């Protein structure tokens, strides 16, 4: 055998991971739907002041509970007014901000706590893992709704308190999933290779572990974001969520619930909005999970 083998060409057919992800994303119906709804809500939240000519706080006690246009109301308040005569559309639009903010911040706090714990436990194993597992167990054993209610009841329900409490209570899934994912990635040989090549610990965590557990992180982030939004609504429903007159959707449902049997639209409108938001976040999360399924083994 005398000939040298030809230089094997790079497999042109295979696009880069990012291109593949994008391609899959564009074919994923759930992701597109979730993304679109989410985008609309996001835009509404951002441009809330421009989209409504009334202030969400302006009361008009003589024009209470005016029905929305589709139930025979007037066009000035096309979604009607609430029990204090405030414009429902304006509150809904501004409420999108609050709900998104609660979801984002609470999920961010828990992501920071949970993924740090999870990644450290998964990477180091041994005692660190035991300690983290214990913490996770403690956290799981605490009844979330009960503790959240108690804390909000005792410390008052400002936005900050609610976000912090939810953030401090919802990190378990981050920790559990990232711990498992990190353990898996840590066993892979490229981590060993990086170590042998003299990479420092932070560098390995940052460059080799984090990017490869990122898809889990994002998926859990969306789940917990939805979870936080629903929980806040539940707290508000029980009267222990954020403080009025902040226009949170949960609060709107809680205020509208009083008239459930007589003016059902009062609770239906924010209820549907909340449902759509949570639905879109969840679909987005599911989509991301499908789309970012780690490629490699074809």
């Amino acid at each position: 055998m005398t000939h040298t083998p030809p230089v094997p060409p790079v497999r042109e057919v295979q696009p880069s991971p990012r291109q593949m992800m994008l391609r899959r994303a564009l074919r994923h119906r759930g992701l597109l739907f979730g993304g679109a709804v989410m985008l609309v809500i996001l835009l509404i939240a951002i441009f809330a002041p421009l989209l409504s000519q009334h202030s969400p706080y302006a009361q008009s006690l003589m024009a209470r509970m005016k029905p929305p246009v589709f139930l025979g109301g007037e066009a000035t308040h096309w979604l009607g007014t609430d029990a204090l005569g405030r414009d429902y559309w304006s509150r809904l639009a501004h409420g999108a901000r609050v709900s998104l903010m609660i979801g984002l911040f609470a999920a961010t706090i828990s992501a920071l706590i949970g993924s740090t714990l999870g990644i450290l436990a998964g990477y180091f194993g041994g005692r660190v893992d035991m300690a983290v597992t214990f913490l996770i167990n403690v956290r799981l054993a605490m009844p979330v709704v009960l503790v959240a209610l108690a804390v909000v009841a005792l410390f008052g329900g400002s936005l900050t308190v609610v976000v912090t409490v939810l953030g401090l209570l919802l990190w378990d899934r981050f920790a559990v999933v990232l711990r498992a994912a990190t353990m898996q990635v840590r066993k892979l040989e490229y981590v060993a290779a990086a170590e042998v090549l003299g990479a420092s610990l932070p560098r390995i965590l940052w460059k080799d572990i984090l990017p490869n557990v990122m898809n889990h992180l994002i998926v859990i982030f969306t789940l917990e974001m939805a979870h936080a939004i629903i929980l806040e609504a539940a707290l508000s429903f029980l009267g222990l969520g954020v403080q009025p007159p902040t226009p949170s959707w949960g609060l709107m449902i809680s205020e509208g619930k009083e008239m459930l049997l007589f003016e059902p639209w009062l609770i239906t409108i924010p209820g549907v909005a909340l449902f759509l938001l949570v639905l879109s976040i969840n679909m987005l999360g599911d989509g991301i999970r499908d789309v970012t399924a780690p490629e490699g083994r074809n």
Partner: protein
Amino acid sequence: MTDPILSIRNLTVDLPRGADRPHAVEALTLQVQPREIVCIVGESGSGKSITAFTTMGLLPKALTPSSGEVLFEGRDLLTLPAAEHAKLRGRRMAMIFQEPMSALNPCYTVGDQIEEMFEQHTTLSKAERRARTLHLLDEVQLPDPPRIYESYPHQLSGGQRQRIVIAMALALDPALLIADEPTTALDLSTQAQILHLLKDLREKHSAGILFVTHDFDVVAEIADRVVVMKQGRIVEQGPAEEVLTRPRHPYTRLLIDAVPRRSRAVGQDLSRSPEILRVAGLDKTYHIRGTMFRPARTVHACRDIEFGVRRGETLGIVGESGSGKSTLVKCLIRLEDPDNGAVWVEGTNIAGYSRRALHPYRKDIQIVFQDPYGSLNPRRTIGDQLAEGPTNFGEPRAKVMARARELMRIVRLEPEALNRYPNQFSGGQRQRICIARALMVEPKVLIADEAVSALDVSVQKEVLKLLNEIRDRMGLTVLFITHDLRVAAQVCDRLIVMQKGEIVERGTVDEVFGTPKHAYTQKLLAAQPGQAWEVPDIASLPPARLDAMGGLI
């Protein structure tokens, strides 16, 4: 000639749209006679398993047979209703799979799982079923059948499990037995036993066996006839003796040529060159914490390991799975901390160094791992990963990238590949990239831990050649870990043989393979399949002639 048991004619199986080729199997024709072992060989992805699955009626939903026929006992299986086909399975045709570890349901005793065959296909009473099962267990040479009968799969070794699967397959005396790489996952001595068992059983049960493998040594050991496949097509078939010693098709020749020889052209004399790495008294014990339901135990993965390697030398480390080979190298590169012992690299003992103190010595020893898919980070470009090492040792980016480009050329990849991601490369290409990555920091010692085990023979050959070249060109010292004795013989200067964490034998290749002293080494050597087969010298064969379609004339 008697009637064939199985006769596949002109079979074509379509792949789903978007696959890299339109057909998994194309225009395939083959026959299996009673008491005949027909081996299908070919590289990964050539359609061997698909052929087997089509016959069994176990094709994944995505794949559909589009033309041809599969005649079994006079009936065309492709047109047979699924329910009828299911009735044949297990009773008239049976199958053994590659992965014994996962082929059995972990939730039921193996006795129960064998008995299911009788339950499904016969009307035997409970007691009879049990008796027949115990008999089968005895027949596949399992010790203490009543105990095995009550065991769960996880309580048995891989070889034992494979025997259970075989027992299951033979339960109802099928006319056809299909074995899809049944020994690939087993170690040498177990493989030898299973092959022996199959040969015996063919006689006793008068079944025809379709045996799928990619290992020519196994073919040489058991095949009556050989079918060679490439990309879904049969390129050559004939009696074993004929195909193995006088292959006619270039592809068959390429494959056989790639089979490592059992000897190596003697390299340069190294007795004068200085010792670059020395290991002494190295111990490593794993304490496995008792998990929820299992008691704790300790494993002595390495015990009192001692050896030295000279500059430019290739030291082979062989031994069965679990003998401690990987643990040893992990201790050398300090992915694990040895419990005891010293590791001298050019006179510096790095065994006890802290992480920080070790840093400058890191680049002296580099490693290439087995799994071509797991050893590259899928989220980083090749260039970024190649640059990792030198960057960590503070080299300027420009210089690093220049070197990366050069190394890409050395491992025969285009420099543009640096901007791509691992998923855009094949397994063999990935192994080259890993070698390049290891070489980026200009190591003194390169460890290859089963670096070619996961590759097809032809690719394996390329990579081995590359390694050889690089070693000679750069004066590298190589620790070559493998369980494949052929490979070891071909690339190593000296060998050490490990068993249960200890070195049981050492010496030059000729010493170890020619006059093994330790019983374990002897056993290992004896278990090699196809020893009678002398790999032909392809260059000396007459040139092949092909028709326009790539078929033989």
